[in-house]
């Protein structure tokens, strides 16, 4: 085995000797060997080493080994018959693979359903509203409320008098004189026939105070009120919104009208009293049910009208507060003490935050961990399996 340069590497020569070269390469090496004495000598060396290694032969396996393995085989066969060991029976894993597949499919389905069903319902409701939404007369004619969709829409439609919009607005103001600003706000609202629905004042008189209030003002007065409120102090934040409820309102009125008609017809039936007692009782029960529906819809209608008539105005007033100049210097001991207290609070906050996180997300992580643990472990083992063939 000489190390002189050759077109064939010695390792490649060895692979040829072991029969481990691809056919085309083996042909090249064979051709080279016919011409190269050194390589033939190297191959002879490989052969000599293998020949010497062949001298190391171990004794034959004891006969006991065959007997023992046969015993094991008998035992496995008998256990297989009893169902103890599935060695000679078709594979029967603890959890069949199709169960894993089914579980995975169910998880995926639930995930997709959780995302899509709310959207589906939303779109369906809106489409139903679009069908029922034609503007209806109060006297919708004969037919129960459930038959509205089947009625001649043209006969019950009426153009709306105007869009019904629930208006909302919010305004954040800053004032140097808190009390004066508060009085001004309340005066403006009252002057425009508004009223206060809720009012909260926070903070002491010697610190920066805040006022949070919700006012209800007539919708047509909202813009003048806002214009006047802006003069009270600098506006820090302002927003306005409007939700159109025309279709919802007309739909509700139509259903209410139909329900009233139904109630009238039932009352007429009751007056005639041509049926048997059970029939009369059934009619009375139906009247009670329809009446309940009428009252509920009536309340909804009034609430809707009220929301449209009165706009909701949220006002937040913040007092511009200037911290007085502190002449007395805080002592070092006090500062250190404060630092210790703050450190303690930070520690407590961090512990509480960690516990909150674990309580909030722990169950979810545990749930998904339990679901995914076995499939992932199964897949991991499958990935590692090819090395041993199982």
């Amino acid at each position, binding site marked *: 085995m000489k190390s002189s340069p050759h077109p064939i590497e010695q390792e490649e020569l060895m692979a040829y000797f072991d029969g481990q070269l691809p056919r085309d390469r083996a042909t090249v090496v064979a051709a080279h060997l016919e011409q190269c004495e050194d390589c033939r000598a190297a191959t002879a*060396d490989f052969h000599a080493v293998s020949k010497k290694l062949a001298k190391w032969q171990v004794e034959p396996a004891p006969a006991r080994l065959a007997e023992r393995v046969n015993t094991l085989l008998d035992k496995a066969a008998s256990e297989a018959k009893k169902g103890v060991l599935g060695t000679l029976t078709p594979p029967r894993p603890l959890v069949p693979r199709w169960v894993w597949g089914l579980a995975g499919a169910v998880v995926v389905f639930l995930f997709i359903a959780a995302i899509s069903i709310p959207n589906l319902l939303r779109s369906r409701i809106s489409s139903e509203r679009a069908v029922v939404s034609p503007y209806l007369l109060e006297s919708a004619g004969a037919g129960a409320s459930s038959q509205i969709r089947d009625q001649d829409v043209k006969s019950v439609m009426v153009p709306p008098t105007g869009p019904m919009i629930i208006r909302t607005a919010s305004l954040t103001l800053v004032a140097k004189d808190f009390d004066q600003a508060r009085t001004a706000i309340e005066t403006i609202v009252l002057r425009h026939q508004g009223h206060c629905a809720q009012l909260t004042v926070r903070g002491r008189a010697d610190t920066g105070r805040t006022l949070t209030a919700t006012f209800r003002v007539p919708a047509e007065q909202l813009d003048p009120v806002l214009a006047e409120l802006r003069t009270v102090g600098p506006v820090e934040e302002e927003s306005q919104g409007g939700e159109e409820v025309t279709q919802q309102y007309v739909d509700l009125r139509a259903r209410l009208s139909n329900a009233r008609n139904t109630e009238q017809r039932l009352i007429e039936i009751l007056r005639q009293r041509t049926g048997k007692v059970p029939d009369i009782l059934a009619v009375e029960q139906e009247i009670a049910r329809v009446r309940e529906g009428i009252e509920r819809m009536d309340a909804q209608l009034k609430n809707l009208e009220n929301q449209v008539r009165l706009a909701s105005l949220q006002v937040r007033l913040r007092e511009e507060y200037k911290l007085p100049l502190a002449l007395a210097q805080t002592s070092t001991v006090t500062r250190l003490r404060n630092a210790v207290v703050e450190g303690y609070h930070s520690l407590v906050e961090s512990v509480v935050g960690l516990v909150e996180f674990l309580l909030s997300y722990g169950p979810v992580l545990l749930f998904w961990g339990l679901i995914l643990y076995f499939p992932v472990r199964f897949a991991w083992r499958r990935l590692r399996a*090819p090395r041993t*063939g199982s």
Partner: protein
Amino acid sequence: MATDEQLMLEFQRGLREAFTELFQRYREPIYGFFRRRLDDAARAEELAQETFLAVLRGIVRYEPRAPFRTYLYGIAFKVLAAEWRKRSRQEVPLEAAGDPGDASDPDTALWVQHAVGRLEAEAREVLLLREYEQLSYAEIGELLCIPVNTVRSRLFRARMALKDLLAPQQGAL
């Protein structure tokens, strides 16, 4: 003649004779595998038995995705590793299999055994698998989780070292 993989599948379907045939084919090679790596013949026999028992128990999960020979030697390797862990040894105890002082004749098995025992562990394992278990380079690579080129270089290194170690003047030292 049925291949090893076919025999395994037949055994999986319940044909006992298939396993008997496999055992006949691999009884000596598996016993030799352990015997060349352990100094205790009785223990080698027990480990060979354990290997076949593992094949028996693992038949339900067997899939012919790799040659049966690789599968079988893979099990044997795991059994051997467990044995080494039990003995708290890291090296193959080939040196303990005989007294080197008695191995003065380069033509005896003891001489060869002693020379192989002096090889570095990684190269020695590749050499044993190639020379005695007759595994291909690819099978050895799969078994030891190393590339085929590494198998080739380690085997070449082992043979180069053995060429010197098996020379009479080296063995007499």
